[in-house]
């Protein structure tokens, strides 16, 4: 499935918005007003946007610690995200969950786990619920190469295949778990590419290409929605920033600065922008207007977040159990 021009521009806008949100967080992080770990997805925007483009609010995503992209691409509220990073009562989890446990049930984002691999069976179970309830919904599971080390992935994929669940596994292979490369931890490429094609459809794509992600996601999600069972897309990408917090360490402590630069020249946002400009689908003025609107939205989100009230201490023990 190729994208219409209008759609490509819209998805570019979402990627740019996501990028600029992350850049803003990064630029303000040193002020210590966001007292929470942040795991920026700079360089991985094409994946969340390209995948979530095919989802409705009834579909769901299961996310992880590197959650901002999944959340925003799924339609999660920006104000609530930024407020959450500021630990405010107006945050999407009212300052309880923090950056790694975002939620926006109105758009099908039902929470995320910061235990690596933790969201994999949960997303699989959500797919089972859709199937049992006879709904044509799709559950998308985002997971990283770190999660690919975990046995729970093997258990979940087997079960999804066994029950032909409407789940799409999106493997964001960004080359690193903290400071350790995927190849130092995994003996070979992800083995689930070797499953029988009638059990699970799989594909490897350039995760920094919106078109590639979009096309594969379209196939996978349509398959899931029509009862065709699970699928897995490996998106090869790169974590440009450090594991957590802001900035890029180019001193070569654990990765070659040249490797970082190589990937920076293959940036998903810059690449797509250049392409749209070159093809004349977007001109400099249109781009500036787009960016200005995004920046205004971000300004407002930060302004609102800073102004928002903190949770009340006397509410400390709320939400441990839900009451009927």
């Amino acid at each position: 499935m190729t994208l219409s021009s209008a759609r490509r521009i819209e998805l570019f806008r979402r990627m740019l918005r996501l990028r600029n949100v992350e850049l803003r967080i990064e630029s303000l992080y040193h002020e210590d007003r966001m007292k929470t770990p942040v795991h920026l997805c700079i360089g991985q925007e094409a994946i969340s946007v390209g995948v979530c483009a095919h989802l409705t609010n009834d579909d769901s995503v299961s996310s992880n610690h590197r959650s901002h992209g999944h959340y925003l691409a799924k339609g999660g509220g920006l104000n609530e995200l930024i407020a959450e990073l500021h630990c405010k009562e107006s945050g999407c989890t009212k300052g309880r969950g923090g950056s790694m446990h975002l939620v926006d049930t109105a758009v099908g984002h039902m929470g995320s786990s910061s235990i690596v691999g933790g969201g994999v069976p949960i997303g699989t179970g959500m797919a089972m619920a859709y199937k049992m309830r006879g709904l044509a919904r799709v559950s998308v599971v985002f997971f990283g190469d770190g999660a690919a080390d975990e046995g729970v992935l093997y258990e979940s994929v087997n079960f999804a295949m066994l029950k032909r669940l409407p789940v799409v596994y999106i493997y964001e292979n960004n080359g690193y778990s903290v400071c350790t490369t995927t190849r130092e931890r995994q003996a070979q490429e992800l083995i689930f590419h070797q499953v029988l094609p009638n059990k699970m459809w799989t594909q490897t794509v350039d995760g920094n290409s919106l078109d590639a992600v979009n096309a594969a996601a379209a196939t996978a999600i349509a398959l899931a929605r029509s009862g065709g069972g699970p699928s897995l897309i490996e998106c090869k990408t790169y974590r440009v920033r450090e594991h957590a917090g802001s900035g890029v360490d180019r001193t070569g402590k654990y990765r070659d600065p040249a490797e970082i630069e190589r990937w920076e020249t293959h940036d998903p946002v810059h690449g797509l922008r250049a392409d749209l400009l070159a093809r004349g689908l977007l001109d400099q003025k249109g781009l500036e207007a787009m960016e200005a609107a995004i920046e205004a939205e971000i300004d407002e989100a930060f302004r609102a977040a800073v102004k928002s009230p903190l949770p009340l201490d006397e509410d400390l023990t709320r939400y441990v159990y839900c009451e009927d």
Partner: protein
Amino acid sequence: MPWSKVTPETHEPDFLEREDPAARRITHAEAIRESFDQALGIDTAVYLMGQGVNDPGGMFGTCRGLLETHGKERVFDTPLAENGLMGIAVGSAIAGMRPIYLHNRPDFLLLALDQLANHAAKWSFMTAGAVKVPLVIWSCIGRGWGSAAQHSQALQGTFMHFPGLKLIMPSTGYDAKGLMLAAIKDKNPVLILEHRFNFKLIGPVPEKQYTIPIGKGVVRRSGKDLSIVTISQMVHEAYAAAACLAEEGIDAELVDLRSLRPLDEEIILESVARTGRLIVADHGWKTGGITAEISALVAEKGFASLRAPIERVTAPDMPTPAGYTLENAFYAGKEEIIEAARRLVRQGQAIEIPDLPTLEETVAP
């Protein structure tokens, strides 16, 4: 809302021999089976899964016939992938189902503790109440026949420690059914630990759909000399012990907690306020187990009532041995409760143990 018809039981029937003679009497296992059957009937969101739920044995009979009645989409076996399946159960609960996930031994739940304790128990809080996890996990404590160290752990102490989980350990079929329905109706993750020795016990169980409040204990026997606080199969041990102690002139009060989380602090403190002496009994290990919590609660909030040290009757701090003679030495019960009671009430005074009454009359053939 299909669950509105399942109403809390307010009348607490008498325990064992004092019950209404006209009441229907069924086994504890059958009471559980009936609760599953009714829950599956009440709400299509309910499903039942677990290794062996469709086996000929039907999980000690608790699942017999359910597959036939409710179909294989809602009653199904699983792979042996405990953490994965626990997460799948959690995910399905998040997305609108009410899973009941059966494990025949709590030992295997340690494989799934990440999903149970790191995820299910915290999801409501982490989402500030936006997302619920109505999940029931059911497992059985075993004992005997060389189950040994990895197949007989009474891990209630482990599970009681995690906020966000509810924990139930029934002693009667009546409670097993009512608490099961309450657990399935509940919107939070609830773990129910059964004890295999209970399955064949027969007692009064109404046919209607009813719930028993989670977190409310019950006094099984009133007494003035000391309180025995316990749960699950140990209630039967304690009941027999109390009968025995009565013959020696020691009048024991017996509190069956039924739930461990939430814990019925009031019933414990009130009982100790009456008796001034406390024995806490459990099949789990002593150190860091549930008896520690109950004892600490009383040492904190019931201190003024205490007239003697708090005694704990538990398994010793060691893995379960396989051999039957060592098993006998390992497991505490009736006799150890009697000894503890004597220590508390008549320190130093030696007394013969009379023939112990047993519950065998109430055991199904």
